């Protein structure tokens, strides 16, 4: 849950609006995959809260986007791949792909790895037969 109260957040309202719009442009919702966009209320709350850990870089990227002086929907091709917004893009990915609904749409259980862990098939060790047949490859010294 987001523990940040509005007055503690260092991002101005204008910056928050840009962050949310940009997040939704990077990862829009998809009815086909039944997933929300990154501007979804819960996901964006996570983004806003998590941005505090990397405030300077995120702020710098958002200021860059604001500085383009045109609607984000038009600036999006110019922004994509720009190093100035790389930290913000990383933040969006980190928060988006740990959302319950997104994880479930990918066939994942919405839980951390520990303590349940995961199943991995053992594999067919008879595949080693040609390697064994070839014999020693290390060098005498």
């Amino acid at each position: 849950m987001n523990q940040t109260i509005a007055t503690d957040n260092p991002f101005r309202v204008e910056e928050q609006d840009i962050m949310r719009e940009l997040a939704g442009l990077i990862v829009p919702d998809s009815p086909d995959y039944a997933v929300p966009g990154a501007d979804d209320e819960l996901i964006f709350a996570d983004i806003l809260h998590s941005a505090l850990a990397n405030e300077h870089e995120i702020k710098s990227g958002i200021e860059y986007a604001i500085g383009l002086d045109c609607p984000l929907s038009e600036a999006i091709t110019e922004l994509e791949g720009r190093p100035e917004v790389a930290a913000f893009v990383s933040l969006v990915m980190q928060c988006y792909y740990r959302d319950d609904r997104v994880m479930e749409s990918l066939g994942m259980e919405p839980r951390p790895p520990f303590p349940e862990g995961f199943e991995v098939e053992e594999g067919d060790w008879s595949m080693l037969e040609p390697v064994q047949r070839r014999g020693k490859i290390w060098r005498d010294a």
Partner: protein
Amino acid sequence: MGEAVNFEPADVLIIGAGASGATAAWNLAETKMRIVCLEQGDWTNPSEYPSSGRDWETRAQSDFSINPNRRAQPGDYPVNDADSPIKIANFNGVGGGTVLYAGHYPRFHPSDFRVKTLDGVGDDWPIDYATLEPFYAENDRITGVSGLSGDPAYPSKQSLMPPLPMGKSGQTLARGFNDLGWHWWPSDSAIATQPYAGRDKCINLGACLHGCAQGAKASTDITYWPEAIRAGVELRTWCRVKKIEVDDAGMASGVVYFDADGDEQFQPAHVVIMACNGVGTPRILLNSTSERFPDGIANTSGLVGKNLMLHPYASIQGIFEDELDGYRGPHDSIWSQEFYETGEDRDFLRGFTYEFVRGRGAVATALTGVHSGRIPWGAGHHAAYRRLFNRIAGMVSICEDLPEEHNTVTLDPHLTDVHGIPAPKMTYTISENSQKMLDFSIDRASEALRAAGALDLIVESPIAGGGWHLMGTARMGTDPARSVVNEWGRSHDVRNLFVVDGSVFVTSAGVNPTRTIQTLALYISDQIKKRLTNLFD
């Protein structure tokens, strides 16, 4: 109130509680000497490792990052790595780098100790594989190694536990190697595949690089340290060493350190053992200046901090049609040493290991895709993401790095840690031989991945953040003019000062060094035990 600190002279003072310090402490404990270990970090609680939380992939980039400059935790010190294309990776705390390593646990080969004789480059070690073999076996027993006996890339060695599962990823890649007639084998791993010495078995968390919450991965905080402490070793955390002092006879008299309160203390000792890795050890040695040793202690040869070796890595990943293991399972699965020994038909000397990479997490997949341009912003994002999710597998090539004196650890003239102690500066370039090896490894891996069915490839060379292996900066040898410590780890200059970490490596081999670092720590501490009556002669 905590227990009062005992500042009576220690018989043995070990600096650093990581892979080598823990091993040496355990081995010396049976002597009943008073052994004290100073560690600049603290214990880590496994229940707080990232894999216990939903944000585990985010924490892998922050408080559990492999890069101390990014992690910036209280136990860390900054490292200036601006003059190196490969950035520092380490962990400062009880267990050291073993807390964050993958658990890849190969041995060196016999040829790795005879590089000069066999290939005319680097130097030969003053010891050989046969000398270390019993210490490898002892370390394997304490650590608990999984794998499969009979690897044709090695002399015979016993496996203590069954190998980690191959999984879909391992089988897919193995098919490619079989098609080309190339070697592959289950990796030796410091990961328990069945209950072992009080540790539970691996449950495929997939987050080995950020601490194993299950306790299946053998980090020394849960292997050597509990036994060493039960045997009477004192481990003092939050103690950052500033310098080693010397007496009028030129012997180490003890160390000056900052304690948890930031107060400067002096711990006298009869023997000092350095176990701070290939960057931390030369940092302290170079900081330990005195009238007798104006260029740093143990540095008459001028070689402290020189010959830094890092193991340049390339990452070569394939994108496959079918779903593979993805986020499930440990990083380790199988390896290949097809190109390990020098080949006459190649334009470089020595060789490398391929370590297969099982897959990556959901966030890492997104970051890989977005930052490489494979996953677009906007409407195409979701379909493109799903073409990568659980469909990336491949390998890294770990290339033997040869010693070169211009690759160095020095003291930064400006940067310091929180206590004002000068920080280390890495100056490193990738040699022509290493670059050719990297390029060759990418070409051959690409062939293997295509043979395995990869549709596309993702290549990173060198892995910029991959300075995990820090070696060579206090090298071992019999000639005091060409080495820092002798053939059993004792400083040529200071007869009660020893080094047991990767700094003593003469050459780097083309494998992860931890198993050999710990084996050397056992070997050197065994030499100390055997020579107790005439240790300083």
